[in-house]
């Protein structure tokens, strides 16, 4: 509902779900036992979440409805971080168990198998809700307006409908439903701080597979994926997490707009024309050269900890530059760039673990592993655009993450791969730092060279005017595919170096937060500037390091930084500096 009307991909929806569960726990355990206490608590929790949703919509989202979709994704991710720490403060880190639902505690026999009554109740809740929503959307004026706004918001406004009120009411109802979903989990599962990202990744898949903005589509997709997972666990117990995302990849290739979705009417989409990419101005070059000089001259005088930070910054510059390459000149938003970083790390780590390969081989394997993944995933991703492409990149990153997480025999699962250390000559921190610096600066310069080569011009032509670029003989698909693969290769080099600098590889290298790190670096620096990713990676790694050192609640502060960035510096730091100059 919320995506259909506001076109905002709302990460915070997972937080609403988690808050629904926590609030329901507090209410139900404090209210008197019995029907009224339980169901009253569940409904009240949902309504409180609805009010929180309205607050977020009015204070945050209203300001960014016209911003590029990536900013919206990031802003709502900032909310996720803030809510995580607030929930930690309020409810503590331990899992909470709620009471069972009064009147539905028992079990019944279904086809000779004992089946909990509460689960039967939940199975009924789904279609009943779908029916009620259908009536709401088809039998009331409000519903008619919402459906009209889903198709063409601007026209609805031109007919005298106050879109702001409409958006806020939609957001309220959507948040109430998310809160209700979380609250209803109380008798089934423990309430914990991981609920938000776990549910949102699945919810995105369901919504994208169903067709963004289609309610029956979402229901159908939820059934399909639920069944796939239920039966998948019998056949492939190791890849249940992967299954959902595989379904999504297949559906999006066959039906790019989802099972019941329709192509968005692009005729009325706001046309954002990017200003031409300019080389970094003279003073900026001097600044970058000064930074490079510092990076070369200062480290011999630094201690081990500072050297580790410097090494990480060098690696992050390349990681950010590789994402910038497909986002800026390529115009493709990737929400799963960590996949290639992580696959680079795993490419090296697996060789060390299983073949005891030396570092030189591992570092060569890293870009190959990542590039191969970029080559395969890219073929799917570059066919889509905008939110759909971003969601698909996210899905592939989740596939890579769940493979690393679940395939314990090969990858070590959650325990990761340890003992990924550099060769003897590169063991000293200073030598490894210089190695990282040389490789990262060289790869970053190569990416920059590609942006101003004919290949880069063709890439930008395809971004700004795909039809015209095709009409003068440019093969947009292959150009974007090559760019995607190149960016993956570069991210793989960064990932390989990262593995050797840490001495270990973990699934978190490919998790959503790492992809968000990369996006933040690029956006902090400014998407449409060349030096942006460099400035962004420096600033972000420094901010992150400081926050983690100074505050236990660093997520809260990082979330706040993201919100400030999105609201006040939509062009990034380098963009602001350029405007001032």
């Amino acid at each position, binding site marked *: 509902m919320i995506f259909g009307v506001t076109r905002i991909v709302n990460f915070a929806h997972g937080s609403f779900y988690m808050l629904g569960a926590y609030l329901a726990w507090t209410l139900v355990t404090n209210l008197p036992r019995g029907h009224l206490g339980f169901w009253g608590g569940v409904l009240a929790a949902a309504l409180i979440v609805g009010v929180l949703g309205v607050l977020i919509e009015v204070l945050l989202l209203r300001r960014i409805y016209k911003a590029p979709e990536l900013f919206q994704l990031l802003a709502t991710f900032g909310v996720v971080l803030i809510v995580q720490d607030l929930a930690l403060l309020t409810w503590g880190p331990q899992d909470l168990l709620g009471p069972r639902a009064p009147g539905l505690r028992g079990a019944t026999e279904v086809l000779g198998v004992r089946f909990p009554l509460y689960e039967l109740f939940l199975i009924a809740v789904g279609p009943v809700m779908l029916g009620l929503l259908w009536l709401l959307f088809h039998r009331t*004026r409000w519903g*008619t*307006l919402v*459906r*009209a706004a889903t*198709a*063409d918001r*601007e*026209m*609805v*406004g*031109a*007919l*005298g*409908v*106050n*879109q702001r009120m409409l958006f806020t009411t939609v957001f309220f109802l959507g948040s109430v439903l998310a809160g209700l979903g979380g609250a209803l989990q109380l008798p089934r599962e423990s309430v914990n701080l991981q609920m938000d990202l776990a549910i949102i990744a699945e919810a995105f898949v369901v919504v994208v597979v169903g067709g963004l903005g289609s309610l029956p589509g979402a229901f159908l997709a939820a059934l399909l994926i639920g069944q796939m997972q239920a039966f998948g666990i019998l056949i492939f117990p190791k890849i249940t997490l992967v299954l959902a995302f595989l379904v999504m990849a297949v559906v999006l290739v066959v039906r790019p707009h989802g099972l019941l979705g329709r192509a968005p009417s692009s*005729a*009325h989409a706001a046309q954002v*024309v990017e*200003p031409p990419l300019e080389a970094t101005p003279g003073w900026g070059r001097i600044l970058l050269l000064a930074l490079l000089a510092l990076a070369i001259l200062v480290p011999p005088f630094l201690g081990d900890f500072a050297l580790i930070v410097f090494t990480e910054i060098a690696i992050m510059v390349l990681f950010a530059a590789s994402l910038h390459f497909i986002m800026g000149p390529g115009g493709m938003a990737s929400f799963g760039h960590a996949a290639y970083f992580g696959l680079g790390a795993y490419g090296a780590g697996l060789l060390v673990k299983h073949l005891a390969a030396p570092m030189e081989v591992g570092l060569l394997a890293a870009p190959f592993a990542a590039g191969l993944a970029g080559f395969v995933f890219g073929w799917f991703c570059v066919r889509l655009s905008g939110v759909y492409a971003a969601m698909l990149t996210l899905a592939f990153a989740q596939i890579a993450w769940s493979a690393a997480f679940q395939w314990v025999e090969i990858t070590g699962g959650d325990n990761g791969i340890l003992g990924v250390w550099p060769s003897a000559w590169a063991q000293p921190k200073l030598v490894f730092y210089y190695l990282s610096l040389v490789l990262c600066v060289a790869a970053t310069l190569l990416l920059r060279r590609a942006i101003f080569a004919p290949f880069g011009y063709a890439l930008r032509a395809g971004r700004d005017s795909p039809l015209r670029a095709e009409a003068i003989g440019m093969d947009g698909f292959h150009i974007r595919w090559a760019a995607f693969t190149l960016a993956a290769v570069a991210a793989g080099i960064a990932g390989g170096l990262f593995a050797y600098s840490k001495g270990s590889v973990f699934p978190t290298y490919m998790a959503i937060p790492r992809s968000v790190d990369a996006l933040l670096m690029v956006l902090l620096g400014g998407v449409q500037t060349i030096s942006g990713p460099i400035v962004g990676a420096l600033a972000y790694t420094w901010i992150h390091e400081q926050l983690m050192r100074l505050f236990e609640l660093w997520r809260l502060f990082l979330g706040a930084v993201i919100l400030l960035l999105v609201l006040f510096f939509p062009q990034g730091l380098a963009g602001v500096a350029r405007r001032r100059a």
Partner: protein
Amino acid sequence: MLEVSGLHAHYGRAHILHGVSFLAREGEVVALLGRNGAGKSTTMKAVMGLVRPSAGSVRFQGEEVAGREPFSIARRGLGYVPEERRIFSELTVAENLEVGRRPAPDGMASWTPARVAALFPSLGAMMARPGGRMSGGEQQMLTIARTLMGNPRLILLDEPSEGLAPVIVERMAEAVLQLKREGLTVLLSEQNLHFARLVSDRALVLEKGVIRWEGTMEALMADEAVRAAYLTV
């Protein structure tokens, strides 16, 4: 009724309107003429608030509306009929009309689906049909009807004859004249001089974002030089 002065508008860095000024009096049909890209649609969108004017004033019934949001301008009695029609294709004809419905100001007879169907008889027969399954002419009628449901005092009619068969264009002209008889003010943007001539009292000729000529429709038809300079291709 509508008084536009010194209106400027931009799309990104492109400067489209360079100080457009004109008047539309109550009850008249004014045609905004000009070639493709002259700025006709942009003028309409700027009046409606769909494109935010970068300078200038738009006074409607004596009140400044430039810079207001489209919904608030619509509620003051300005109706907008877009060139691309923009029917809600998943919604039925009746639902499309419902989206446009707004209460009439005091003392004005309210538009209803029945009254709209009397103006466009073919719509009356297909109230339950989804908007996406209509012909171009039917969609054009629906988009006008949908705007009328908001009981506007003035409608901005952007190229209503575009892509329609000649028979339908004639019918459209009758409908516009009927609306004029009922006291509605119409600002019409057109490339089809034939259609504009059938319905308009006065003409404004736009070129490169500036009004180059203004006068009665008869005067325009008599002035071949103006037509050759700004209108004929």
